């Protein structure tokens, strides 16, 4: 078995419902832009499409800055609009 570096992807709340899963790992050896990440996420889970405009991405527990890349072995989370309190 080859030990690939993986992006760990976490789906929360409505994103989890639309994806049908709370967590995945994607094997990748190169950094991903947010656009490339979304292309793969929507390929895997087309039902996420209507949620995309309202979902923010977090990288290692911090909201992703514009232009920032996702690295292999990062933890990436899909954060739908929050509703705590």
């Amino acid at each position, binding site marked *: 078995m080859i030990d690939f570096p993986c992006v760990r992807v976490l789906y*929360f709340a409505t994103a989890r419902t639309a994806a049908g899963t709370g967590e995945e790992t994607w094997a990748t050896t190169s950094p991903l832009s947010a656009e490339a990440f979304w292309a793969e996420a929507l390929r895997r889970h087309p039902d996420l499409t209507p949620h995309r405009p309202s979902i923010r991405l977090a990288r290692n*527990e911090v909201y992703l800055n514009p232009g920032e890349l996702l690295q292999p072995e990062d933890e990436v989370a899909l954060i739908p609009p929050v*509703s705590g309190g």
Partner: protein
Amino acid sequence: MHAEVELLRQELEPLILAGAPPRPDSGAVVEFTGTVRDSENGTPISALIYEAYEPMAQRVALALLQELAQAHPVRAASMRHRLGPVPVGAAAIHLRVESAHRAEAFAFAAAFMDRLKQDVPIWKTGSLP
């Protein structure tokens, strides 16, 4: 500034504990308790269910407490949020802010609640009938 964040899957401690004696140089304590109402979008419910991205919620809430203390100097601020099912009438969130004078504590508490509802990854994901 002393800051604390706790995410709990049990009843939030009674206010007598949350309301521990303030520091002797604090003259104002503002507390906010958000409780579950008996209906959601007009439908009667018995509980709301909360979910969080726990480590990020901890981190973002703590950073928010520290950030707001720059604009509104307070001595101490702590936030507790309950996760899982929270029955009607029970507290989902409790915020406690201590400051020397009341204006800072009120401004801090109101601003924290606004930002919590924008940035802290906690969700209402459903309800129980």
